C-alpha cells in the first residue's frame, strides 16, 4: 500500500503497475498472512517438517491448478481435470504393478501416464475447440467419460504403488526432501513455459478469440494445445498424488476439480481469459490448504468448520478479485 503514496502518479499508479506486472501479489499477501496465522496458532505447522508436509500434500493441487490455468488463459475451463487425475493415477498404478514394480516399470508407467493425460487433454481440446462445444458442459461430459474409464481400469481402489515410487516422492536427498527438488524443477519448467510462443498465443486467444483468429493465429490449434498442456499437468498432478498416496483409487481426483478452479481465481487470473499467471494459481492452491488448516488450528467446533472454511474461501476469492481489479483499474 505504501508504494501508492510514494508514487508520483495518481493514487494507485505504482501499485497498479506492480500488480499489472505481478498479478499474483495480492494472493501472495493473503498466503503469507495465512501462513503467519497458522504459525501463530500452531508453531509446528510452519516448521521445516510442517512446510515439507504442506508442499507434499498440496503439490498435486498446485499441479492441477497450473493445468487449469493454461486453459483459463484462453478463456476456456476444464471440469474434467479431477477425472483425468483419477484416470492417470489408476493407469500408472496398474501398469507399475503389471510390470513388476521395478525402477524401469515406474519410468515406463509414468511415460504412459503422461500420454494418457495428453490424450485426455487433446480429447477435451477437440471437443471444445474443434467441435465448438461449450467448455463447461462439454468437459463435464468428458469427466463422466474419463471416470467411467478409470473405473474400467480399476473397479475399486486398492492396488498399491511400488515402494520405489512413493519412497522417492516422500524421501530426501542430501537432507532435502524430494518435493523441494520437484518444486524447483517445476519452477524452471514454468519459467520456460512462460516464454513460449504458446503461452502468449493462449493469452491472446483469451483476450479476444475472434481478433486472434483474424490476426492469423491458428486459434483452434492453440486452444487444443492449451487443453493438451492441461492434460499433461493433470498427469503430473496424478503423479504427485500417487507419490503421496502410494496407491490407485479410481475416484481420487474427483473432488479436486472445483478446488483447482478456485485456486486459479484465488491466484488472480481472470476466468474470462487473457490475463493471469501460473504462479498465482500455485499460491491459490496453497491458500486453500492454509485456510483448511487454520480453521482447525484456531479451534473451530467441528460442525462449524465447513461453514467457516466456505466463508473464508469465499472472502478470499472476493478479496483476490477485488484487490486485483482495484489495482488494475
Amino acid at each position, binding site marked *: 500500500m505504501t508504494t501508492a503514496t510514494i508514487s508520483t502518479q495518481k493514487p494507485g499508479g505504482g501499485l497498479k503497475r506492480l500488480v499489472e506486472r505481478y498479478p499474483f501479489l495480492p494472493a501472495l499477501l493473503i498466503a503469507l498472512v495465512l501462513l503467519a496465522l497458522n504459525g501463530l496458532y*500452531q508453531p*509446528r*505447522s510452519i*516448521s521445516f517438517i*510442517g512446510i515439507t*508436509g*504442506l508442499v507434499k*500434500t*498440496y503439490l*498435486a*493441487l498446485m499441479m492441477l491448478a497450473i493445468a487449469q490455468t493454461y486453459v483459463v488463459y484462453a478463456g476456456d475451463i476444464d471440469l474434467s481435470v*479431477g477425472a483425468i487425475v483419477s484416470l492417470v493415477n489408476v493407469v500408472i498404478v496398474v501398469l507399475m504393478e503389471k510390470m513388476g514394480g521395478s525402477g524401469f516399470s515406474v519410468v515406463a508407467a509414468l511415460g504412459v501416464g503422461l500420454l494418457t493425460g495428453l490424450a485426455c487433454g487433446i480429447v477435451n481440446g477437440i471437443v471444445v475447440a474443434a467441435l465448438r462445444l461449450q467448455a463447461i458442459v462439454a468437459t463435464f461430459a468428458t469427466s463422466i467419460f474419463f471416470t467411467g474409464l*478409470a*473405473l474400467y481400469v*480399476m*473397479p*475399486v*481402489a*486398492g*492396488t*498399491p504403488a511400488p515402494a520405489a515410487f*512413493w519412497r522417492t*516422492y*516422500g524421501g530426501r536427498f542430501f537432507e532435502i526432501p524430494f518435493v523441494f527438488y520437484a518444486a524447483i524443477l517445476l519452477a524452471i519448467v514454468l519459467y520456460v513455459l512462460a516464454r513460449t510462443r504458446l503461452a502468449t498465443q493462449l493469452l491472446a486467444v483469451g483476450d479476444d478469440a475472434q481478433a486472434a483468429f483474424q490476426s492469423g493465429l491458428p486459434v483452434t490449434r492453440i486452444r487444443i494445445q492449451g487443453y493438451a498442456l492441461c492434460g499433461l499437468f493433470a498427469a503430473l498432478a496424478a503423479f504427485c*498424488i500417487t507419490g*503421496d*498416496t*502410494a*496407491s*490407485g*483409487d*479410481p*475416484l*481420487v*481426483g*474427483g*473432488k*479436486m476439480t472445483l*478446488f483447482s478452479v478456485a485456486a486459479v481465481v484465488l491466484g488472480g487470473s481472470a476466468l474470462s481469459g487473457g490475463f493471469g499467471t501460473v504462479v498465482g494459481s500455485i499460491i491459490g492452491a496453497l491458500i486453500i*490448504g492454509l485456510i*483448511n*488448516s487454520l*480453521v*482447525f*488450528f484456531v*479451534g473451530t*467446533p*467441528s*460442525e462449524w*468448520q*465447513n461453514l467457516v*472454511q466456505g466463508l473464508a474461501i469465499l472472502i478470499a476469492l472476493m478479496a483476490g478479485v477485488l484487490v486485483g481489479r482495484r489495482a488494475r483499474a
Partner: protein
Amino acid sequence: ADYKIGLSNGWVGSEWRTQMIEQAQAAAAAWKEKGVNVEVVVQSANVDVPGQIAHVRNFISEGVNAIIINPNSPTAFDPVFAQAKEAGILVISTDAEVSSPDATYVGIDQKAWGAAGAKWLAETLGGKGNVVAINGVAGHPANEMRVAGYKEVFGQYPDIKIVNEVNANWDQAQGQQAMQNLLATNPDINGVWVQDGMAAGAWKSIIDAKKQSSIAATGEIRKDFIDLWVKDKLNSGASVNPPGVMASALNVAVLMLEGKELKEPATAGQYKNAMYLPIPFIDGKNVDQVAKELDGKPGYFSYTSQLSIADAEALFK
C-alpha cells in the same frame, strides 16, 4: 493419564457422519469418570484426498496421541500414516478399511454387512425370485465390499436371479428414481437389495407403485424410515452400520494408549489389520423394539450401538 485424540472426517454430506462425530465426542467425555482426560480435536469438512491427508499432517503438527479417521480413500493414506506412526501416533480407521499396515481398522465388516441383508432377502423370498440391487458410489471401497457380500450370498441361491444392478450414489432421491425406472421395466421384481441412504427412496417408489405387499427390500436404520416401516408393516430387513463405530474406535484407542494389549490381535480383513465390530440386524421380529428405542430422537437419527468402555475393556488382556 491425559490423551489428545484427533478425529478426521472428510465428507459432511450425510447426517450419519455428524452423528458419528457426536457419539465419538460423547464417548471421549465419558472417560472422565474413569479418571482419564481424553481431549478430542476434530477436523470435519468436505475435502478432497489431499485435503484429508492434510488433516493427518495437521494432527501430527498438533501433537495428538492418536488419530481416528473415516477415510475418503482406502489406500491413499499409507505414507502419511507411516509418518504418523514414526511420530509415535496411534492410527485407527473406522467405517472404511485402510490398506496401511500402520493403522488398525475398528468398525464393521462391510462385506458381512452386505451379506447379512442379502441373506435376509434370500430367505424371505424362499430362495427364489428376481432381485435388483441399488448401490452407492461405484468404485468406493465400502460399496464394492458390500456388493461382494451380496454377490456371494445370492450366488448360493441358484434360483435367485440378479436382473439389474445400478448405482445411485448414496443419494435418497436418486435411489427413488432408480427404483422407479427399474420397476417400470422389470414388472416381475420380487426383491430389492438396496444400501442405506437410498433404501428409503427405493421404498418410496415401491409404495408409489403399490407393490409393497409383493416386494421385499432391505431398509434403513434412520428413525424416519423405521417409523414408516412399523406404520406400513413393510417387508424389510436392515443391516446396521452404527454411527457409533467411531466411538467404539475411540474407546479401543484409549485402551491402546493406556498400554493395554488386545486379547486377539487385529488381523482380520483383506489388509490383515481389522478388528470387526458386531453388525446388529433389524427385521420384522425386532423392528418394534428398535422403534421404541428411537422414540424421541430426530428423524435423521440412525439406530446405533457402540462398544461401551466395559465392552472394549473386555477385548483387552
